[in-house]
């Protein structure tokens, strides 16, 4: 893996993040070396295998999605 580093300005607009969890990292900038370990032991009941339920993103998004679904069903 080859890395090209250019010394320039770094401009970032807006960022929205819900969660940064369990030895994960969010960085704006440079870094030399990153090692992230996460070890978890849990009961088998808590294991979830996908597909995961989608989080609702608000009323407008759902309306758009429902409209898309209804238009798709009408086409059939």
């Amino acid at each position, binding site marked *: 893996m080859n890395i090209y*580093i250019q010394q320039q*300005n770094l401009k970032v607009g*807006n960022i929205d993040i819900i*969660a940064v*969890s369990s030895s994960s990292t969010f960085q704006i*900038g440079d870094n030399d070396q990153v090692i992230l370990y996460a070890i978890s032991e849990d009961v088998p009941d808590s294991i979830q295998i996908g597909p995961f339920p989608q989080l609702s993103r608000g009323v407008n998004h759902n309306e758009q999605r429902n409209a898309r679904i209804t238009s798709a069903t009408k086409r059939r």
Partner: protein
Amino acid sequence: MSKETLVSLQRLNVVNNSTSSIIQVGDRDNTYQYKQGISIQRSKAIYGFDEPYFASYPMFCYELPPLYQWLPDGKVVHEMYGKLAPLPPPLPTIEVGSVNIITSSSSSNIHIGNGSKRVAENRQKNIRQFLDGIKLDPSQFSSSS
């Protein structure tokens, strides 16, 4: 980008930052974040006996595998903007508009700036105990000491 960087941050909104996690604006050298935890969910709340020890479980004790041995060799090329174009080299800056983060937890890291070396380690064990049908006597569990 060099280690002397100006950071201009308009707005940083973090609701929750917990359990050995860091928020930093600026440069940093070495970081080692460590978090270990045992959570026990019981069907019945009982008190009056010893808490569990981390040493009882081998997952808190064994050494971590060195991850860098799996990475192939590479090269890092530093290029100055001033060398590419006949312009005065600009002052290296990071300009960030707004950052909204709801939660960061369990040795996680929010960093706006440059870092050198970072290791984050998180060991978590979850236990569920079902105590239905077991008669509990507090004197039975109380430690002799």
